[in-house]
């Protein structure tokens, strides 16, 4: 017993030291990563012509860093195009999760508290969660030919092209199903007596759900959102198969040109990892911020 106690203490101190160092590295990495991405996007769309560099071109001259390292020069040469493409990845993710949330709340409430609507909601979530996202995108793009709906909309790189709207519809529908499932289980994990207590002071069922059950459930659902955000960042890459020029698609076409699969996809993997890690850190921060004092272990730190 005492032996395990001792090792645990040393390990803990070790973790604290590496933890604070790790935290500073994470923060520094995050600032660098997002600073650079934002600089690229600002450069592309918000600087007047003649200021900054043209989209797709790097701030530094690749030839200048080539003497230091060939890999670095490679990265400097291709990262700008990838950063520009990452904009669409972020747009697809953020718009879909927000729209998905708007619809997921009623769908999950219907599932838990509805009667007839509960069955409809169940059928919808099971159907979406039981089929590949890629198949759903194909239904929208090829079978329903939805992109014709969005023809003629402006497309200047900042505002997306028609097919992006199709992808957003697809990801939103998919995300509604997953978020509804997260919120449903969160609703169920709220003590039933909370609603009883709300009814006992005269709140209607609807008011009780709105003011008592949902505020608690939405907090419980945060780890679910964290998952969903990460899921959307990664699976937005499937939009490439309906021709959306997001991060993966752009990388694939660059690699098809220069055959540098290893280099390009290593850079792409790093970009996705950066986005995914940022998302999980962000959600962990949100979870800490909205934690209820005295409840659960999340409030600490």
């Amino acid at each position, binding site marked *: 017993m005492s032996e395990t106690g001792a090792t645990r203490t040393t*390990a803990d101190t*070790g*973790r604290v030291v590496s933890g604070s160092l790790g935290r500073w590295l994470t923060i520094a990495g995050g600032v660098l990563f997002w600073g650079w991405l934002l600089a690229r996007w600002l450069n592309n769309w918000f600087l007047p012509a003649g200021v900054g560099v043209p989209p797709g071109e790097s701030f530094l001259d690749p030839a200048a860093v080539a003497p230091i390292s060939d890999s670095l020069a490679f990265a400097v040469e291709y990262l700008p195009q990838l950063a520009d493409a990452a904009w669409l990845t972020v747009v697809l993710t953020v718009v879909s999760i927000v729209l998905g949330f708007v619809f997921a709340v009623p769908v999950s409430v219907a599932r838990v508290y509805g009667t007839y609507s509960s069955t409809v909601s169940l059928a919808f979530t*099971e*159907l979406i*969660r*039981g*089929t*590949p*996202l*890629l*198949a*759903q995108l*194909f*239904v929208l793009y*090829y*079978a329903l030919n939805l992109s014709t709906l969005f023809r003629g909309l402006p497309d200047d790189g900042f505002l997306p092209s028609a097919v992006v709207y199709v992808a957003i519809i697809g990801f939103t529908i998919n995300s509604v199903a997953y978020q509804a499932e997260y919120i449903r289980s969160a609703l169920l994990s709220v003590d039933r007596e909370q609603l009883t207590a709300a009814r006992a002071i005269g709140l209607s069922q609807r008011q009780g759900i709105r003011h008592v059950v949902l505020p608690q459930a939405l907090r419980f659902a945060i780890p679910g959102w964290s998952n969903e955000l*990460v899921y959307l960042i*990664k*699976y937005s*890459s*499937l939009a*490439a*198969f309906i021709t959306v020029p997001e991060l*993966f698609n752009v990388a*694939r076409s660059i*690699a098809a040109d220069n055959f540098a*699969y*290893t280099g390009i*996809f290593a850079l*792409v*993997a790093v970009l*996705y*990892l950066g986005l*995914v*890690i940022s998302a999980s850190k962000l959600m962990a921060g949100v979870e800490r911020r909205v934690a209820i004092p005295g409840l659960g272990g999340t409030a600490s730190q």
Partner: protein
Amino acid sequence: MLPGTGVVGAVAVGSLELSIRTIAQLGSDTCGSLPPDVAFVCENAGYLAGGLVLTIALTIASLLVGLVAGFPAGAIEVYGGRYASLAVEAVGTVFRGTPIVVILIFAYFVVPITDWFPIQRVLPVGGAFVAAVVGLGLRSAAYQSQLFRGTLQSVDEGQMEAARAVGLSKLGAIRHVIVPQALRRSVPGFQNEFTIVLKDTSVAIAIGLAELFTRSQDLFVQRTTAVTEVILLISAVYFVMTFGTNRALEYLNDYYAIPGEST
């Protein structure tokens, strides 16, 4: 859990062969009387069924790779030393943070996987299949390690103390007391993982593996008017597989549950 998966797999593949034969039979007899686009799908049912067999084989193989690599990884994260668990965590983060399509591209175009694992010389499978199994399998291992880490940690600490108190070594306690309880609790998570892997086999279209999804695209590229029929059909096939297997696993889970314990 393992035998369960095996049985489900064997039954699925067996009944599939039967239905392929039936479908092929039906195809030659009755397809002609259907509307043209449906008839087209009907005539090619055998081709799709071949893709389905590949999809199922890919799913099972990837889940097994995921289990074989993921369980030890999870155990290391719980019981391993500091550096071992940090290493496992880092590798896991990379696999969990990268889109499956990027992982598959790496496995097929970048890493000479078929040189490292020349399975194609022993089994009648292609390089794309091996790459897909490794890609889907390792990604699944990264998720399964999280699953097992969670369930191993969920076993009450008192269980370990009680096992040590009756004289079991730490390893013995893990093996005979903690792991059996943790594995039972892992079934719902494993079910989830199964669904994810099955659906994500469709992404193997990126490396041209002729599984169900890729073959469906082959078909509707041939006859673009049949696109709705083809996609809805294969969506239904995926749905039946995820839904059916999930219900079957839930039944097994209830059947083998420890009396008096929930879940």
